[in-house]
C-alpha cells in the first residue's frame, strides 16, 4: 500500500467546486480521500503544503515531443522531465514526428518511451491525414486502439472535405479532432502579425483573418457533422468571438490558448531586433487581440491553456528570421506565466486558472484526471502563488532553449508534481 498525505494545503478543485484548506490522501495511485484533518498512521509519508495550492494534476493538451525522428530537439524523456518541472502530470503530444504518428506502431512506440521515462503521463494525438499530407485519412481507429486520445494535424488542413470527413469518422471512436486554423494562402508568407508593427519593421505579416476564416469553416463543419472539434492555440479576437457564439448555440467545440498569446504582443517582437525566438505561429498579435484572449479566459470561452511546446534546435533558430522555424518551448514556463499574468494580473482567479489546466483539458480530450474526486488518478500539482522565479533557459530540462521569455521575472510557480502517487518532481528550496 503506497500512501502519501498532502496536508494543510489550499485545495482548489473546480470539478468539485472546492477552494478551501483540506488534506488529500493518496493511496496506491489513486485519490483515496480528501477532507479536513485526515488522520493517518505515523509511518505514512506526509507532504506539508502549508500556504500552497493543491490542485488536480495539470494536463497539457499541446506539446511537441519530437521523438521519434527529431531527438536533437527533444526526446520523450527530456520532454517529460520538462513537463513535470513545469507542473504538468500529463502531456498530449503531437503527431509531427518522423515517421509521422499516423499509424498504431508509432503510437505504441511513443507510449512505450513514455513508460520508460516513468515521469508524466503521455497521451498521443494522432495525425488526421496520412503523412500529414492533408489528402487522405490516417488510420484513426487503429491509433485510438493503440492509445491515441485525439487526432489533429499540427499544421493546417487546407482540404475542407478532408476536415469534414475526419470530424465524421472520428465520431465512431468518440474522440475530438484538433485543428490548427490557418489559411496558408492568406498568410502569404507572413512571418508575424500583419498590422502597423509589421509595416514599421518591414516583415511580411499574416492577417488575423488567415486564422479566422478557418475557425469559421471548422465551426460550420462541426455543426454539419456533429463532430467534436477542438481549436488549437487561438490568438485573435475574431476567432474567440466565433467560438463564443458557437458555444452559445450549443456546439461541441472546445478551444485552447497558448501562454505567449496572453503575455506578448507584436510590439515585443519589434523590440527584439529580428530575433527568431519571438517567431511563433500563430504569431504574437497586437495588444487588442491580447486583451481579447484575456477576456475569453475570463468569460469561459477558453477551455484550456496549452503550452504549444515547440522545441527547435539553436542552429535552426539562428537562421535569419524569415528562414528560422517557428515555435517556442513552453512546458517549463506556462504555469508561471499563467499565474503571474492572469492571476496576479487580476484577469482570473485561482479557481479558473486551475480549471484551465485540469478539468478543462481533461474534458476537452476525455482524459482521466483533472479532478481530485476520490477514485481518480493520484496526479497532483502543487503551486506556490508567491514564489518568485526568473526564467533561465540554461536551466531548462528540455533539450531546446528557444523561448522569448529568457530573463523574465515571474511570480508564482509549481513546486511539487505528483504522478500516480509518486513525487515526479520537486522544486529546490
Amino acid at each position, binding site marked *: 500500500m503506497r500512501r502519501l498525505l498532502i496536508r494543510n494545503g489550499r485545495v482548489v478543485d473546480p470539478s468539485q467546486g472546492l477552494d478551501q484548506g483540506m488534506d488529500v490522501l493518496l493511496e496506491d495511485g489513486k485519490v483515496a480521500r480528501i477532507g479536513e484533518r485526515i488522520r493517518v498512521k505515523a509511518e505514512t509519508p506526509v507532504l506539508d503544503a502549508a500556504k500552497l495550492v493543491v490542485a488536480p494534476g495539470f494536463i497539457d493538451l499541446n506539446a511537441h515531443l519530437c521523438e521519434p525522428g527529431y531527438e536533437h530537439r527533444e526526446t520523450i524523456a527530456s520532454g517529460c522531465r520538462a513537463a513535470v518541472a513545469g507542473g504538468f502530470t500529463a502531456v498530449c503530444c503531437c503527431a509531427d514526428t518522423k515517421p509521422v504518428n499516423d499509424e498504431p506502431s508509432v503510437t505504441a512506440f511513443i507510449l512505450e518511451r513514455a513508460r520508460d521515462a516513468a515521469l508524466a503521463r503521455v497521451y498521443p494525438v494522432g495525425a488526421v491525414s496520412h503523412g500529414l499530407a492533408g489528402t487522405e485519412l490516417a488510420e484513426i481507429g487503429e491509433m485510438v486502439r493503440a492509445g491515441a486520445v485525439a487526432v489533429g494535424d499540427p499544421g493546417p488542413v487546407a482540404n475542407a472535405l478532408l476536415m469534414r470527413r475526419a470530424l465524421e469518422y472520428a465520431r465512431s471512436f468518440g474522440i475530438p479532432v484538433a485543428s490548427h486554423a490557418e489559411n496558408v494562402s492568406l498568410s502569404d508568407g507572413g512571418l508575424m502579425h500583419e*498590422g502597423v*508593427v509589421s*509595416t*514599421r*519593421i518591414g516583415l511580411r505579416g499574416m492577417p488575423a483573418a488567415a486564422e479566422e476564416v478557418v475557425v469559421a469553416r471548422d465551426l460550420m463543419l462541426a455543426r454539419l457533422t456533429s463532430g467534436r472539434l477542438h481549436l488549437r492555440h487561438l490568438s485573435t479576437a475574431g476567432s474567440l468571438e466565433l467560438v463564443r457564439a458557437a458555444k452559445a448555440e450549443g456546439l461541441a467545440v472546445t478551444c485552447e490558448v497558448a501562454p505567449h498569446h496572453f503575455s506578448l504582443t507584436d510590439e515585443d517582437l519589434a523590440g527584439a531586433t*529580428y530575433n527568431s525566438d519571438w517567431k511563433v505561429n500563430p504569431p504574437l498579435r497586437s495588444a487588442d487581440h491580447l486583451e481579447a484572449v484575456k477576456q475569453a479566459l475570463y468569460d469561459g470561452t477558453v477551455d484550456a491553456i496549452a503550452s504549444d511546446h515547440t522545441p527547435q534546435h539553436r542552429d535552426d533558430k539562428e*537562421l*535569419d528570421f524569415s528562414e528560422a522555424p517557428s515555435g517556442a518551448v513552453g512546458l517549463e514556463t506556462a504555469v508561471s506565466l499563467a499565474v503571474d499574468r492572469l492571476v496576479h494580473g487580476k484577469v482570473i482567479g485561482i479557481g479558473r486558472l486551475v480549471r484551465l489546466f485540469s478539468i478543462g483539458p481533461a474534458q476537452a480530450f476525455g482524459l482521466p484526471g483533472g479532478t481530485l474526486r476520490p477514485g481518480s488518478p493520484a496526479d497532483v500539482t502543487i503551486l506556490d502563488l508567491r514564489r518568485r522565479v526568473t526564467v533561465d533557459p540554461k536551466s531548462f530540462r528540455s533539450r531546446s532553449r528557444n523561448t522569448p521569455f529568457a530573463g523574465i521575472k515571474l511570480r508564482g510557480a509549481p513546486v511539487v508534481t505528483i504522478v500516480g502517487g509518486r513525487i515526479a518532481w520537486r522544486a529546490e528550496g
Partner: protein
Amino acid sequence: MPVESASELKRKDVVGIAPLEPAEIQLILDTAEELLEVARRPIKKVPVLRGATVVNLFMEPSTRTRFSFEMAEKRLSADTLNFSASTSSVSKGETLVDTARNLMAMAPDYIVIRHPNVGAPHRLAEVVPASIINAGDGINEHPTQALLDAFTMRQHFGRLEGLNVVIAGDIRHSRVARSNAFLLNKMGASLRFAAPASLLPAGVEELGAETFLRLEPALEGADVVMMLRIQRERQAAVNFPSAREYYDFFALTEERLALAAPHAVVMHPGPMNRGVEIDSAVADGARSLILDQVTNGVAIRMAILYLLAGGRGAATADS
C-alpha cells in the same frame, strides 16, 4: 524650419533610415555635397580611406548598386572585396552569422550587405565589429537609395521641407518606398502614395503618407514624382493583373505628368521597365533627374563610408 546638421554620426552602422536622427541625415547630405566634387577632378580619388577594407556582400542580384558602392569605395582609396551569392562558397543553410564570422577573419572595416532576408544587416551589426551598411534587406529598407533620392531633391529644389513628393508603384514590397517614407517624414516633406490597394501595405498609415488608389489625383501639385519598378518576378499576377493594365492606369505618361506642378521632376530608383510604369519620353525627358540620382548615389555612399570611418589607431595631434 531646416534641420541643423549633426557633427558626427551616432552609430557604427547604417542599417536603415528608421534609427537615424534628422541631424544625422543632414550631415550625410552635407558631406555628400562636398564629395561630389571628387568626381569632377582629373584624378577622381582621395586618400582618406587608404588601408581600409570593405567587403561587398551581395546575396541578392544587383549590378547597379554594387557598382555604385564599389566606385565610392575606390574613390576613397579603400580596398574592396566582392562576395556574391553565386560566386561565394556560401551554401544554403549556412547562417549569415557564420559567413560574417569567416569574413571577420580578414578584419574588414566595413561590410556592405544586400540580402533577401529582412533584418540581416541588423543582426550582423550586433554580432560583428565592422561597420555594416545596408544595401537592401528584403522588403525592409534601402537607406542609401533614400539618401541619394533626398539629396537629388534637395539639390534641385534647395530644400526638402515642404516638398510634395509622390511615390507610385508596388509600395508594399518596396524597400525604396519605405526608406524614402521614413526619411521624408523625418525631414518635413509631404508624402503621397499612389497604388491600388493590393499593392499597399496593411497599416500604411505607419509610413506617414496620404494614400491614393489612382495616380491622377495624387499628381496634383506634386513637386517630385517617383515611380517604382513593378516587380514582375515574384507572383505578381495575384497583386495586379498584367503589365498592360498597369500601364493603362498607373504608368507615368506625359499626359499624366502634365497634371503635376509645372516645375515637377521625375525620379526612379532603377532599373526601369520602360513602357510599364514609365514612358521613355518621360524617363529621358527634360524633367527627369534619373541620371542625377545615379551620380549622387556614389557621393552619398562615399559620405557614409567617410563618416563611419575611424577606430583603428591612435589619433595624431592636429598640426
